């Protein structure tokens, strides 16, 4: 191995996706792109959705590289990745994906840590050493014997990172690793990633659409734009861009009560802990209410009570709009049941009373025009979210319940959701939205309720709430 070779070097890289025979070739995703990431760097890879960040990352890892026509060279630590043996490549380059649930293979933490080591045929003693050292480094000893189901989202992603690092890669590639995590878990994850970078000397390349969350760790930043890669300054990335102008909330709230939850007690099992303990929530008709709080504080449970899909074991939950409501769950895939975008939007046309023209208009309105024949699963995660939202809006709900509507979305799509929610508000739709996204909530919600210790601890005007907050306030 050349000792002074960069951790990752791509030279004159061109790539276009494979197509079936007889079909005209795709336009290239990358065209003579070059980049160099020095050893020990913490590099951010930015770029708009669909600019080719993921393709670029995957090309550095032959096992997950997309099929297509590739020109130019990709070298990791001075070695051409295409000439590596599979076992060597698995150990040299680590790859962490976006969704924690889909990359955990085994049922228990220790088995997952050992999975990669078993795959490359390491001897018993070496495996034990690697598992032990990785656990020690990440402080994971206490959950070594837990099963996957017991882990939180943040712990799952941490496990994905740990089990990749147990392979001792020289280069670690991560594709939007924190976009599915709440802010607290994301920070915990990033600080571990930073420690791996500085203390273990692992070179890190992270593709992200929220570079400002990693500004303090990064040593350099690259941007994919116009099929090329260029180095950009970290300065320009350190501030979170504004989501939009704060629009005056001119519409007066109705005085009638839309949702009235009083002294609600709820738990999922007779022997489980109470999730809600004497929770009160009143939402007026036409109001946009934000719910904020830590993981497991009961935001989703409270939404389920408001939707009437769960009933409190004690207390009452009433909704004046229970016959005209729509619910957007955390994962849009829960709502997607058809083979094409157009069919998806038409699923409820008969029962909710709308036609093809309405669906087409909605598609154009939501920026989904031209995607009518695509399979919903061929859309990006953000577009799936918009599709699910469009499907709900077509039913003309008067009460909209949203659970983390901006999770995993890039800036453009978050702006899109802001616009849609504000339009609903202008139409007098009552909206209850649970989210960790402060910038988003500031744009849409009139009032914010903080969930803590099984109930609503505090409700206040959104602007004031975040201005006076110590932990959620933005500089």
């Amino acid at each position: 191995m050349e000792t002074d070779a960069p951790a990752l070097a791509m030279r004159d890289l061109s790539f276009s996706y494979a197509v079936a025979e007889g079909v005209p070739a795709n336009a290239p995703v990358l065209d003579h792109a070059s980049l160099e990431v020095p050893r020990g760097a913490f590099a951010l890879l930015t770029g708009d959705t669909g600019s080719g960040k993921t393709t670029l990352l995957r090309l550095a890892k032959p096992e997950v590289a997309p099929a297509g026509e590739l020109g130019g060279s990709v070298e990791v630590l001075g070695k051409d990745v295409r000439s590596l043996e599979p076992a060597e490549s698995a150990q040299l380059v680590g790859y962490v994906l976006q969704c924690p649930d889909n990359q955990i293979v085994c049922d228990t933490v220790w088995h997952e840590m050992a999975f990669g080591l078993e795959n490359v045929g390491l001897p018993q003693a070496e495996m034990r050493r690697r598992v032990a050292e990785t656990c020690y480094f990440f402080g994971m000893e206490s959950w070594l014997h837990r099963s996957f189901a017991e882990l939180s989202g943040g712990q799952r992603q941490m496990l994905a990172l740990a089990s990749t690092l147990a392979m001792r890669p020289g280069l670690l590639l991560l594709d939007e690793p924190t976009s599915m995590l709440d802010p607290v878990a994301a920070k915990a994850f990033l600080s571990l990633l930073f420690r791996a970078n500085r203390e273990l000397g692992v070179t890190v390349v992270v593709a992200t659409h929220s570079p400002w969350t990693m500004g303090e760790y990064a040593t350099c930043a690259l941007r994919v734009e116009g099929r090329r890669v260029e180095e950009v300054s970290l300065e320009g990335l350190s501030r979170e861009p504004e989501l939009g102008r704060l629009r005056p909330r001119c519409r007066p709230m109705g005085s009638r009560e839309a949702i009235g939850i009083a002294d609600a007690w709820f738990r999922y099992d007779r022997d489980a802990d109470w999730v809600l303990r004497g929770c009160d929530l009143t939402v007026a008709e036409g109001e946009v209410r934000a719910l904020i709080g830590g993981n497991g504080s009961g935001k989703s449970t409270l939404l389920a009570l408001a939707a009437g899909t769960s009933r409190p074991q004690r207390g009452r939950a009433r909704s004046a709009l229970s016959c005209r409501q729509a619910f957007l769950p955390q994962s849009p895939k829960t709502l997607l049941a058809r083979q094409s975008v157009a069919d998806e939007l038409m699923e409820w046309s008969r029962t909710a009373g709308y036609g093809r023209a309405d669906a087409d208009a909605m598609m154009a309105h939501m920026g989904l025009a031209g995607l009518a024949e695509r399979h919903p699963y061929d859309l990006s995660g953000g577009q799936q979210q918009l599709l699910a939202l469009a499907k709900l809006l077509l039913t003309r709900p008067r009460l909209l319940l949203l659970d983390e509507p901006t999770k995993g979305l890039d800036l453009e799509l978050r702006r899109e959701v802001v616009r849609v929610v504000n339009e609903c508000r202008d139409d007098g739709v009552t909206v209850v939205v649970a989210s960790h996204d402060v910038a988003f909530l500031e744009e849409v919600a009139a009032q914010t309720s903080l969930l803590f210790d099984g109930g609503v601890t505090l409700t206040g005007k959104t602007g004031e709430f975040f201005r006076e907050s110590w932990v959620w306030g933005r500089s």
Partner: protein
Amino acid sequence: MTSPRAHAFETSHPAVPAAYLGGTVLIAMFALQPVLIALSLAGALAASLAFRGVRATLRGLRWQLPAVGVICLVNPLFSASGSTELWHLGPMAIYLESLAFGACMGAMLVAVVLWLECASRVLTQDRVLELGARALPTVTLMTSMTAQLVPQLVRRGQAVRSTYAACTAASGTRDARHAQVRMSDVLVAWAMEDSLERADAMRARGWGSTEARTTYRSVEFRGRDAAMLSCVVVFLLANAFLAYVACSQWRFYPTMPQLVVWWGYVPYAVQVLLPAALELMGRSRWR
């Protein structure tokens, strides 16, 4: 809710409890002799009380006892054999032997169910996987993945159903069969999509990169485990032989012989009461 911890066999390699419980279940299934069945049932009940607690055991007995009653009563209706006639039910005669056979079968069934429930408490899933890890690495891995994916599928099914129920603005006629088909469509598409990403994650960590895959062992099979395992096997074989002797001297039809006091029952009693005794000893150490 966390279940009480099983102390018995906690410090031994899973091969020991696996051999013990496997052998005990086998003998319990084949030894159709009243004394052996009574002993097996007593041992299984004691083990169940020790491992699973009073409440879980009673909850199980709520269906197990009626099942014994039903089997006991139904058997004479189907096999009208025996010699001691008890009653006449229309054209049918009910014989004592036939009733006794039904009762024994019912008790045996309950004992086997109880033993299996205890086994699931002692042999937790990761300990079972440990057993097969070296011989059947792929099967073990598949089992481990299934253990993770099946609950995920169930959770998603619930989410799909409740989301659908929550979207009342879209409601029309809610046909249950249509809702089921819709749910399976959603779940299948979702799972297939996930599997592509999971396959990538597996390949990224070297799955299939070498023929010589190794297996990580989190517990070792020590000399002490070997000694315990051989003790268990010898004990099981001896009891299997004694059970064979007892069973060969016993018949239900046409008449049942007199039961006698016999030393040969003692080793079996020791065997079936062992888990409960170990559990109590394990607990009393911490009192």
